[in-house]
């Protein structure tokens, strides 16, 4: 069933959103590295952004009040989350010397513990909460139209379109889980030559990491209430500050190192 006011864009958007998120998922190594094609971190951010852009367009396209509210809130959140995410990318790229995710996983895994990496992890986790529409930013389980962000945009969808969008949203969550796992706990990834036991261990390891991530997410979601829409900028500003602090620390560390202090 489609709204009378829906244009072909509304019909096409779910496929675009799903394609973008599925492609993003292919860029993240889960149980083995390297990937047969380049897994670039900036491409990943762009693909996720493309999916959100299409969804916001579809929300506006259908012309209901809720589509507009959802799109405007989503874009506000995205505009604040993306700079923080790019700072995280910057920290990681400086540390690992690349924006290629498998390469980063390899070099960060060997690089040991760093304070700026901790900041990057915190910032990325906060951005992930916002981008995936989880509590305390958004509540994916709510039926209250007026409080929705992501759900308001897709309120007019049903049937296979809605299924694709829900699937795409689940993929996005998986992307963030596996991205955090690949970059910050990159242990257990099978490296060439791939042997069956190594691959099996990699698969078990990634399942374990996702389970732990999901448990932590559940812990966060059950211990916090959803924040007011206008507190979201504060929340994301903290993520941005963490990212900026990480960059700053990194910068000084490199300056001191190069001066031999």
């Amino acid at each position: 069933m489609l709204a009378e006011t829906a244009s072909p864009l509304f019909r096409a958007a779910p496929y675009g959103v799903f394609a973008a998120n599925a492609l993003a998922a292919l860029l993240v190594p889960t149980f083995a590295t390297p990937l047969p094609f380049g897994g670039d971190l900036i491409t990943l951010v762009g693909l996720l952004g493309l999916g959100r852009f299409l969804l916001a367009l579809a929300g506006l396209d259908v012309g209901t009040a809720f589509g507009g509210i959802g799109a405007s809130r989503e874009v506000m959140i995205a505009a604040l989350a993306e700079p923080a995410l790019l700072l995280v990318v910057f920290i990681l790229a400086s540390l690992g010397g690349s924006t290629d995710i498998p390469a980063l996983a390899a070099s960060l895994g060997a690089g040991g513990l760093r304070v700026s990496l901790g900041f990057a992890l915190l910032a990325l986790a906060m951005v992930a909460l916002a981008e995936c529409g989880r509590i305390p930013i958004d509540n994916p389980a709510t039926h209250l139209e007026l409080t929705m962000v992501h759900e308001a945009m897709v309120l007019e969808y049903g049937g296979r379109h809605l299924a694709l969008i829900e699937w795409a949203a689940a993929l996005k969550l998986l992307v963030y889980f596996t991205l955090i796992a690949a970059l910050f706990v990159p242990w257990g990834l099978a490296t060439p030559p791939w042997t069956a036991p190594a691959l099996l261990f990699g698969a078990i390891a990634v399942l374990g990491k996702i389970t732990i991530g999901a448990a932590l997410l559940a812990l966060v979601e059950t211990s916090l209430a959803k924040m007011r829409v206008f507190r979201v900028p504060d929340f994301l500003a903290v993520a941005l500050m963490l990212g900026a602090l990480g960059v700053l620390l990194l910068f000084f560390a490199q300056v001191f190192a190069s001066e031999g202090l």
Partner: protein
Amino acid sequence: MTEQIPLSAEFAALLGPAPPWPVTAVTPALWEEAVAALAAGGLTLFGLWGERCAEGETWVRMALLDEAMGRLGVIALPLDAPRYPALSLRLPAALRLERALFDLTGILPEGLPDPRPWLDHGRWGLSHPLAPSPGAARLPAPYAFLPAEGEGVHQIPVGPVHAGIIEPGHFRFSVVGETVVRLEERLGYTHRGIEALMGARAPGEGLALAGRVSGDSVVAYQWAFVQALEAASGVAVPRPASALRALLLELERLALHLGDIGAIAQDAAFAPLPARAAVLREDVLRAAADLFGHRLLRDVIVPGGVAGGLDREGKARLADLAATLRAELARLLALYERTNSLEDRTLGTGRTVPALVRRFGAGGFIGRAAGRSFDARHLDPLYQPLGLRIPVLTGGDVDARLRLRFLEAAASLDLIARLLPDIAEGPVGAPMPQAATGEGVGLTEGFRGDVLVWLRLEEGRIARAHLRDPSWFQWPLLEAAIEGNIVADFPLCNKSFNCAYAGHDL
């Protein structure tokens, strides 16, 4: 502050300090004195409804409350023609009541400032269903919502069909960005014609209908209904029966307050509180089902008495339940108090103005969370030996309404403990006369606020009944409370009000 106008001695006699509440036919001069006192704030409007008898008699009736003195009465003005000067010219609280009065009976409040239909959406197949000869159906016409003008103001229509399975009501928001500049409610979608259905029925059937007005206020409505019936028949109810009725009312309050506590937290997406509150609510409902045969306590109250009782085991079970709930409520409150992210949502949100609360006579937790101490239980002598303690807060925001529910639930537990010794083992009741004629008023304090029932019996059958839900005086305040808040806070605010749809629309 309200300015007190001394009422004439003749007028003061129209209000009584205790049930049975007087119902008096008045002259236009006394009616006018009442309207003047209402407009000045010396009296509170407690209900307004019309009656058009088949014999051609036409009445407009008004329930009045003198809050300071704790006196209540109903006055009735006979009309030569189906029209009278509108109260809402001077009293905004009367506006929706008069619009509904016209929709139902065709009695025209002359000079009504807002002539738009309220309950009648043009889908009944007739108009003025309570008139002796109903008119042709009104044609469905677009409802002209009140405008909000200015740069960047846009409207958000919400409902009557919502994204969740909830009762229907339409909310028209005029917003600038996320800030609400005006909210207008439109109700009436669940009108089932209960007052028309009551006409010419036997009291027992009317009682069954009263228990089905609003699924969350079964005891409140049924008890108010039988009070009116017993007053009209001149029957006094033995204390063990009244005590059991009062106990049922407190059980209902407990279950609903627990539900609300969870639901408010749920709307802020805080899951642990609703999960635990739902378990406790279920404990209450199961106890109700085991002890009284119905989870919502339907039809335990019968004309003249009660159809159930409590034996020693039943009393022990309720005492155990009360002890568990007392401890658990304290834990839930502690959880609320240490969840800063939740308090951040509730504090200062949806603040009601005490002056408006008084002016509209908003009862229940909405009034008592904003400093209006009225509670119908204060007026009932039944509660006097029990050391009734009614908590009152002054915050007027979502936080105050939530905390008040905790306090009221605890007070209900105290009351249950004190009522238990008075309750008999089995059904108790006074015999009801078969062919009584008369008028009576019933009043109970349901979980949501004061439920008023008036009915007129003619030779043992209901000639006309009017059931007034507390929400009539609470819904308008929601419109005021949300102003200046953000749209995304409306569900939280609305849930803390929890006004009735079914009870209001009847």
